């Protein structure tokens, strides 16, 4: 029983990170019907920028001791800002001019992913960098189950960010515009909404979530390297598809499902079979429900 509870906590932790990244794929798909295949690498950039932001903050602080919580939040915000700027440049330079050419823009996205990997490789070198955690680790024992501050922070921050996202999407006029675009993009300008602004905002939010995901992931698995975004990116993408791409809650659910499946597969089968099993399970879900669990019904045009 305690073993299962233990694994459950691990699954929620992993699922939270997948959910954050899956949201980016899903939101961008919602407004553009486009899969941003560079998103996994955006997540990697977020992890690296968090690392450098933490170093920078510590250096600026010098001898003055500042609480690690402050460094954590500061690094996250700086990483979000930096990641968003990079993503928006990519959108403006590489995606927007090609928006009308569906296939080309997808290939461009794959290319931008490779570009980001190799830029990082050039800048930081081929070494695996160990990420110094910004959370003071304390392990609590609750009825035999151990849970660490790192796990609590990862879960708490992810859920907080998702609540903020829900608020933006449900309650603000920009969020309304995002949802409207996902339903009928051509009619949105008639409401006086500049669609390009909303698309920019969507990319910005998606990359902020990916940056946070990068920082949190680096706390769970504290080694960062330029190719870390590839596998995580694929997994998050598939989570988004399983949940129903274009649907916010679908991406969240998909992320958690993948987290659970992966931890369960790793607990039951030899660990080298983990990815194999989890992808098979996801394929089965998709065979049963091709548009994903909360899948957008294919809109009929009158």
């Amino acid at each position, binding site marked *: 029983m305690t073993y299962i509870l233990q694994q459950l906590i691990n699954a929620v932790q992993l699922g939270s990170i997948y959910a954050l990244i899956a949201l980016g794929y899903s939101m961008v798909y919602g407004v553009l019907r486009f899969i941003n295949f560079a998103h996994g690498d955006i997540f990697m950039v977020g992890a690296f920028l968090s690392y450098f932001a933490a170093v920078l903050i510590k250096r600026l602080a010098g001898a003055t001791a500042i609480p690690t919580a402050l460094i954590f939040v500061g690094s996250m915000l700086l990483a979000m800002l930096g990641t968003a700027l990079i993503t928006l440049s990519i959108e403006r330079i590489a995606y927007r001019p090609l928006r009308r050419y569906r296939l080309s823009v997808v290939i461009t996205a794959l290319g931008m992913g490779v570009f980001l990997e190799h830029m990082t490789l050039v800048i930081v070198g081929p070494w695996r960098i160990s990420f110094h955690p910004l959370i003071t680790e304390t392990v609590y024992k609750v009825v035999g189950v151990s849970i660490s501050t790192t796990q609590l922070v990862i879960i708490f921050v992810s859920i907080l960010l998702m609540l903020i996202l829900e608020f933006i999407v449900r309650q603000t006029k920009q969020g*309304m515009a995002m949802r*409207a675009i*996902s*339903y009928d993009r051509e009619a949105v*300008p*008639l*409401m*006086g909404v500049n669609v390009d602004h909303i698309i920019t905002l969507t990319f910005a939010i998606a990359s902020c979530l990916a940056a946070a995901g990068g920082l949190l992931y680096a706390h769970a698995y504290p080694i960062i390297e330029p190719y870390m975004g590839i596998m995580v990116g694929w997994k998050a993408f598939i989570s988004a598809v399983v949940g129903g791409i274009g649907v916010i809650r679908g991406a969240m659910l998909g992320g958690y499902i993948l987290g659970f499946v992966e931890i369960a597969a790793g607990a039951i089968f030899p660990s080298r079979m983990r990815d194999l099993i989890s992808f098979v399970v996801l394929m089965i879900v998709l065979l049963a429900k091709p548009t994903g669990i909360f899948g957008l019904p294919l809109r009929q045009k009158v």
Partner: protein
Amino acid sequence: MLLSVENLEVSYGHIKALHGISFHVDEGEIVALIGANGAGKSTTLKAISRLISVQAGNIRYEGKNLLDFAPHDVVKLGIAHVPEGRRIFGNLTVMENLKLAAYNRKDREGIAQDFERIFALFPRLAERKEQRGDTLSGGEQQMLAVARALMTRGRLMLLDEPSMGLAPVLMRDLFRVLREINEAGTTILLVEQNARMALKFAQRCYVLETGNIVLEGPSSELAQNPAVQAAYLGG
């Protein structure tokens, strides 16, 4: 003159949809463009709201050249386009559809007053406030589409086939409300296949045939015109 269209040419690929049409709409008027399917009526409205590109000609609104503006800026200038097929956002509630149409407005009180006005004009929408757009009937969706145009505070309303798919009773109701809206100061440019309805509703009409304006004049005169009667009023 509120709106003037001069020698407007629009093509879809190699096919010319409008061959240099000219017409105008004065402040406070109801003007209709009538014509058969494919005559270029919707194209004309889409050109005015800048949803499609224009090959030649001019579109002036309050002295400004609309060709210099993006579609969302045309809305800010006061042109509200109620598109063909209503284009309600089915995943948003009725209230959210209305709020979205007020996207550029900052006058909270004015917005609240407009909600009241709209719910007075269309009590059905008040009942369905929290319902998703795609659960509305065709008639209710048309009401919502007109209501959204009101929320943008447009001074000129472009209406594309509002009668399409509506039962005669609903259609009469809708046109009664549209007349009220016009009497309250909104100028209307209407596009209709239902020529009988359009001639009754509008003060002036233009008849569009395969991208050309072939007839124009006060509705009462056109309704008596034998050619119009034969082609559009069923003899």
